[in-house]
């Protein structure tokens, strides 16, 4: 039943993507209205779905990887919708944002556990939520940087071809994609760092309370912690590259894609691959 509900808005986003892809052959201005309308409809249905989740659980829907990824896709869809309306209509924003949104929703629906698998209370619950919120905000920025990176690479590839290829749609200028990417990377790093730091401190306090296996603490050798550390390092390198003139352009964009892949793996890959972790729902043996 739950997957059926998800299919409602995922299907609407899918239709919006189909309309967006149709710009290659359909030149009617109605196509733009249909694309924006369907994306907005999908977003509204998803909003109702997330509101229902929050109402049912009595908490913000960021307490499990499933909910967090759903919220992430919801925010990315909203940003995509904003750009579709804000940027010139010939720019194919939906080509890049809608597959990302659909990928996140489908990944969350089919591969990620639904339950939080934890029973946090008091200050631990509060800081746990703050930890999740920071990571979520960082993930939104990383997703945006990823989409802008793809747009940059596609546009650069197009401009390097002779004669310049016509796709039947336009892409943002290189400068615009670079600017969005830079802003998103610069915002993502401190947000992810804060989120991870709060998680580490929270885990240290919990471990001191009860030791590994008996408390909410996650030991440093846990796959989730190791992959999160790796992700942080990749983002640190990305931020460094972002400000190194010699690495501007393609290198930064490739690094952005790698960083996003790392983020996805850290967030949901450990659970999806069923690696032994004491973080989140896997602790309680919850399966997708």
């Amino acid at each position, binding site marked *: 039943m739950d997957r059926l509900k998800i299919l409602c808005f995922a299907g609407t986003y899918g239709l919006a993507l189909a309309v967006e892809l149709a710009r290659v052959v359909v030149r009617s201005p109605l196509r733009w209205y249909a694309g924006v309308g369907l994306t907005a409809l999908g977003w509204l249905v998803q909003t109702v779905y997330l509101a229902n989740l929050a109402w049912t659980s009595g908490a913000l829907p960021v307490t499990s990887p499933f909910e967090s990824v759903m919220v992430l896709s919801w925010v990315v869809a909203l940003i995509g919708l904003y750009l579709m309306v804000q940027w010139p209509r010939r720019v194919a924003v939906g080509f890049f944002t809608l597959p990302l949104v659909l990928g996140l929703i489908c990944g969350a629906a089919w591969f990620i556990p639904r339950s939080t698998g934890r029973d946090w209370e008091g200050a631990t619950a509060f800081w746990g939520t703050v930890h999740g919120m920071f990571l979520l905000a960082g993930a939104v920025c990383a997703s945006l940087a990823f989409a802008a990176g793809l747009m940059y690479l596609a546009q650069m590839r197009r*401009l390097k071809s*002779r004669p310049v290829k016509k796709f039947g749609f336009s892409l943002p200028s290189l400068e615009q994609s670079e600017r969005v990417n830079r802003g998103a990377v610069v915002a993502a790093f401190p947000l992810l760092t804060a989120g991870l730091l709060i998680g580490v401190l929270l885990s240290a306090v919990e471990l001191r309370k009860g030791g590994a296996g008996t408390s909410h603490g996650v030991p440093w050798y846990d796959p989730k912690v190791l992959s999160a550390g790796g992700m942080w390092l990749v983002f640190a390198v990305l931020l460094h590259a972002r400000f190194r003139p010699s690495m501007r352009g393609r290198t930064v964009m490739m690094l952005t894609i790698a960083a996003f892949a790392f983020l996805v793996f850290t967030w949901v890959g450990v659970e999806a691959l069923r690696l032994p972790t004491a973080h989140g729902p896997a602790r309680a043996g919850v399966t997708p």
Partner: protein
Amino acid sequence: MRLLALGVDHRSAPATVREALAFGDSRLGAGLDALRESFPGNEFVVLSTCNRVEVYAAGPADAAPDVDALSDFISEFHGLRHDAFASHLVGYHDEAVVGHLFRVASSLESLVLGEGQILGQVREAYRSAVDRKAAGPVFHAVFQNALRVGKLVREKTGMDQGKLSVASVAVDLAREVFDTFADKTVLVIGAGKMGDLTLQHLKALNPGRILIVNRNLGRAEAVAARWQGQAVPFERLNQALIDADLVISTTAAAEPIVTHDQYVRVQRARRNRLALILDIAIPRDFDPRIGDLDQVALYHVDDLRAQAEQNLSRRRKGVEPALQIIERETAACYTALRRQQDAGMLLRQLGDRADQVRERELEFLFQSLPQLTEADRAAIAHMASRLQNQFLHHPRAAVRSAASEPAPPDAPHPVLTAVRHLFGLADAPVPKPGLKKIT
């Protein structure tokens, strides 16, 4: 109803004739007023651009100007001898007028296929005619449809996509690389004609700064003065390249003036910012390997020409679908126009017939009842008038509704035929096929 379009265009007449016949901004209003005075009861629109001068006329069959009358008017208005332009005139009649206007608005008749200006010029011509009260119901319908069809053709065929000149292709590329230009520096190397032309197009982007480098500093200063730019001595080329975001190179140098290694150093000094280089010199001014560098887009004049040719061929592919759209829309528009005319005539006939019957019967009644007072007569006449209007209300509404319904182009609408039969009105005139182009 008759329609006529008469004029000259870039195919039929040289520029001198077109200039002599042009209705410039100052003369357009006077021209429309003079047309209305010369041919009262007719509608007129004058389309006057640098590539065409056309007078569109519409009016009743017995009062509409013909080709001779209109060319006499043109001769008199411009003070030109008839033989100075008559052989260049091209005319269209009736349905062909609608088709021609639709092709013009869709820029199929333009010198540059698919150019966007003509739609605005058609709109402006129509607006001027409306302002001068020279356009009436016929041209409201025809020109509003022309503007819609022009837009539709561009949307459906992509006829307006991609630029056709090297300079405008360069501007398009600049927009693909950069988002804003107020903070950008444009560098022109060489003070040649091509650089000047490209700069003319790029100036529309409002770049923040323009630098001109030339071996002859005097020539650089002359070009810089024309474009509010800054002349830079050739010895400071590297510094200018470092400052520039967009480079146009047009020198006549026999060898590349910027080598790969040199530009690698420049790009390092530029902190690897995005750069667009338009090398429109033959032979090349920039080593082609520079185009492989990250953050650099380098185009040679051959690339730009190939791009322009590709765009033109894409536009040409759109001609056939555009003609199909125009043919369909012309038939629909002209049929609707004729039907509106038929319906209008039928409503007039219906009203006249009812008025005749009412007046005859009232006269008979008043003669047979001479004792009626003036007040009684007025009340009875008023009642008869109301009765007539109420009886005719539904037939009139049905006729108006039928006139706006789609139907086969060559047959009158069955409702119109039925009303004619029921009220014993004369048959509608048989529609004449649209006359062909006259040259």
